[in-house]
């Protein structure tokens, strides 16, 4: 499986990364290098193996809690790092004409 330039552009779009045309050949090479190398896993027989998603030893199950609000009322702290604060809102370019 080898990636072409169009696939790299599509993946970059999915990842919301603006990629310059001049960088596409380098990125394509690097991604193909990495993907070619991880291809080795296909040779391992994993029939009947349950995939392991989490890091917890023993596959500890995640805890549940009551679904209620436990925090809040701190708009200033939440907005303190906003690049464009508009009152108690985040400012973004116009989305709806």
């Amino acid at each position, binding site marked *: 499986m080898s990636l072409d330039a169009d696939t790299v552009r599509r993946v970059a779009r999915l990842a919301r990364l603006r990629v310059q045309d001049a960088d596409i050949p380098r990125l394509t090479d690097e991604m193909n290098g990495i993907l070619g190398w991880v291809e080795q*896993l296909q040779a391992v027989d994993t029939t009947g193996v349950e995939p*392991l998603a989490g890091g917890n030893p023993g596959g500890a199950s995640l805890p549940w809690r009551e679904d209620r609000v436990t925090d809040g009322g701190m708009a200033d702290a939440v907005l303190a790092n906003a690049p464009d604060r508009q009152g108690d809102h985040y400012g*973004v370019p116009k989305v709806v004409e």
Partner: protein
Amino acid sequence: MSLTDLSIAGARRALRAGETTALALAEAHLDAIARVNPRLNAYVTLHAERTLEQARGADPRLPLGGIPLGLKDIFCTEGVRTTAGSKILGNFVPPYESTVTARLRAAGAVSLGKLNLDEFAMGSTNANSMHGPCINPWSPPGRDLVPGGSSGGSAAAVAARLALGATATDTGGSIRQPAALCGVVGIKPTYGRCSRWGIVAYASSLDQAGPMARTVEDCAILLGEMAGHDPKDSTSADVAVPDFAAACGRSVKGLRIGVPAEYRPEGLSPEIAAVWDRGLDWLREAGAEIVPVSLPHTRHALATYYIVAPAEASSNLARYDGVRFGLRELHQGGNLNDLYEESRAAGFGKEVQRRILIGTYVLSAGYYDAYYLKAQKLRALIRRDFDEAWRACDAILAPATPTAAFSLAEQPDDPVTMYLNDVFTITANLAGIPGLALPAGLSAAGLPLGLQLLGRPFEEETLFALGGAMEKATQFTHKPGIVA
């Protein structure tokens, strides 16, 4: 003995006996940082006023009362800039404190400042940082060596006596590899031992916090204060925190030490192989029994990691959107999509972008089963290897790194070659088990060589006992050339 040369245990005794003060300790370290840090670039943010204020208020009766520590710049610190080494967080000032650093603070520790790292903890050299590379204090004159990564600043600061200890994180070896390259001790505890809350996320199923220090006992003391259940991290383990420090002097007689054949690949540096053999001799002399074990899926661990970690990273790093916090870039008249794409392109470095792209690809429709699901199955097999090994042994001794520290100028361009640095450390993250790295000798060129002990889940005490025994045998008292 100079104040910056003390161990944490020693400083604590001196503070409690009234032989020194927290303020004198803090001032000695700030002075050392002022002299040595310009050469090393280990600290990226200092806050002397805050440090001195904390020292003045320190209570020596607390477990870490007055002990000056450096904090990896990936732990959110309330009111102190936290960058994760990334331009995208270049001006980020967290309005909250990570659980681990809050615990250290509550135990009386004094913060000296924030330490350099690879961007978002992605790297093995500390060369991928918005702050510029951190330099290994063992560098000979005229040649800059890497301290390892991603916790390069933590390892360099501890080795150069710019802190008595430091916090660090380990996703694929980021505590153990730099500890080995800088000749200090570091432990990645069992996944879930320390809360991840308030630590800038890289790959959440692999990320774990841990300490670095100059002795095994000091690491045990620090881990004892960092660890513990936290309801704010749903993967934080609700298990008791044992007295790790008490385990350091424990006898290792009768413990079975596994030696995995797969960790002696062809081409392993003869110096690393020799130091490994010497480590086994020390443990044998201390009464442990050496047994061969097999971890047959080890050779697929790196490839497994470089699917799982980028996949999680691409998801975790989706939050950097140029809207809520962090860098914003937008050309005049650009739309919301331009804002996302331009901010992320300007804010993320090359390696981070590479991993986001790989992660996005392996999670994308049509490729998920072939890459991500396959890697998760390999991960299960890698964990199963360890489960099998624990029937035959109580811990494993292996090299921590394939080589000693290498030159910053000679680091490979090819990402796959660079990833080979993590070959010995990555399995512990995939399996969720603890790993302790410690210095075991010097290379012919006078550089530290490290070994790592791997253990069963939540059996860090066994690693501290074995580490303590090895430390006694090694007598690693060498100091780097660039030192306070």
